[in-house]
């Protein structure tokens, strides 16, 4: 183990795994309680269009992908809140359209682009110091948003109608949460790739949800699963010579499956 972390790329990778795990599990807490899991899938797949646009035009693929992800999240929220279409219907359309646009744009590229593979499936071992700084900045913004508005986000997840009637800024909180989700998905892409990013927005909190009926405990268990799952998966990938993104998601999924064996006392 000591030898493993003597490499600077592994130190970077571990730091990225812990930061991403903490960030994803904090956001996942509200994703699970507000039932936004499918939106996470939609956002990550739509981001492909933005990333592809960046590669074709020469703009930064991360920022293009982020712009697409945030725009998708906000547009989905806006359309579904107007009540004309169900949320999952809107996501189903954006998801497919985003992937289709991404594939169409990528097909126009000539030559070899190794970053496409790592964007699709992640490559945590290539995390640079600059990537870490970006991850830390996004994590700071998102976690600050959650820390400041934690109780209000909890209230709108439980009973939005009463929260509106109480004068809480429900629209700001809801769209803020969607934007936080989109940014979290984008920084997770480095860790596990577009295809698997949404898993990190569900599994940690779903595991906490299985174990506890108290939101404080659920939040702590979500954090533990997110951080432990990311770091554990990374270590596992090193020893078993597996792709790190797949190993992280599989390790977290294993924790969740074990949680299914646990029978809650009170329900």
């Amino acid at each position, binding site marked *: 183990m000591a030898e493993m972390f003597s490499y600077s790329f592994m130190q970077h990778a571990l730091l990225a795994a812990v930061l991403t795990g903490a960030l994803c599990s904090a956001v996942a807490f509200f994703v699970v*309680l507000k039932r936004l899991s499918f939106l996470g899938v939609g956002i990550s797949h739509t981001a492909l269009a933005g990333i592809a646009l960046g590669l074709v035009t020469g703009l930064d693929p991360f920022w293009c992908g982020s712009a697409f992800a945030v725009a998708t999240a906000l547009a989905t929220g806006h359309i579904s809140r107007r009540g004309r279409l169900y949320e999952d219907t809107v996501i189903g359309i954006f998801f497919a359209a985003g992937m289709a646009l991404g594939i169409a744009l990528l097909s126009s590229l000539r030559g070899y682009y190794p970053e496409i593979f790592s964007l699709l499936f992640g490559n945590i071992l290539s995390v640079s110091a600059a990537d870490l700084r970006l991850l830390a900045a996004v994590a700071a913004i998102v976690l600050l948003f959650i820390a*400041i*508005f934690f*109780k*209000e986000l*909890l*209230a709108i*997840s*439980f*009973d939005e*109608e*009463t*929260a*509106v*009637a*109480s*004068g*809480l*800024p429900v629209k700001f909180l809801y769209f803020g949460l969607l934007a936080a989700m989109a940014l979290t998905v984008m920084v997770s892409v480095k860790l596990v790739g577009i295809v698997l990013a949404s898993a990190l927005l569900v599994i940690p909190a779903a595991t906490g*949800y299985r174990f*506890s*009926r*108290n*939101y404080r*405990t*659920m939040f702590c268990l979500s954090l533990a699963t997110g951080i432990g799952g990311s770091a554990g998966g990374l270590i596992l990938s090193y020893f078993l010579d597996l792709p790190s993104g797949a190993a992280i998601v599989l390790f977290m999924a294993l924790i969740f499956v074990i949680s299914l064996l646990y029978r809650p006392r*009170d*329900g």
Partner: protein
Amino acid sequence: MPSQNNNNTVILVEGLSVKRGAAPVLQEITFEVKRGEMIGLIGPNGGGKTTLLQALLGLIKPSAGRILMFGLPAGNLGPVREKIGYIPQNRSYDRRFPLSAEDVVMTGCYSPRTLLRALRREEKEACREMLAAVDALHLAARPFGDLSGGEQQRVLLARALVRRPELLLLDEPSTGLDLNVQQLFLERLRLLQQNYGLTLLLVSHDIVSLAGLADRLLCINRTMHIHGEPQQVLHSPALQKAYRCTYDLLEMAATSEEDPDG
């Protein structure tokens, strides 16, 4: 027709019309609620009762007319919002949502005033006091989803009252509860009204129980069909017209009370 607002008037609605898209949901509704009154809002399903409550809370914009709550327009309630408690239509909450009964009451403390800060000790104490007032203090630590329908309604009542509002709006709070629990809930409501000097506007389909407790009944089905003292409303042909039925609603309610299995 009310036209003057004074300190004794809690709700003043004049010529209110509301549309959803192009379809009119409420038309030309006018009424006034005085401080300390208990008003029963009745009418058939789809008649606009919930829409009326949402308009009073400023959640829906009227297409015509005006609403004054404590003298301020419903669209711009500002600090007056603190004076209004609300219990939305009874629904099934996620049974595994990780909140205890006390946590649920605490969400009633959240308002623009509590943004960017944690709840203070006195606010947390108020939650326990209100749980005690609805005889639910022993449920404080229990997961909300594990409570029976009647217990959940008591907790939601404590949540609506925790900021000590002067006006309480309740949207079919006793739907889905058995007759005995419904009756107990309404009686508790009347007691709390007296203890806290509340003004109540209560939507219910239980016309007979409501008539025994309310000071006045308002019957709406898109428009105001009749309003007045309970006995006057119950025996008016306008009530049958509002419900678009040919049988005697009172007789039917009495029969169902005598023979609950029938």
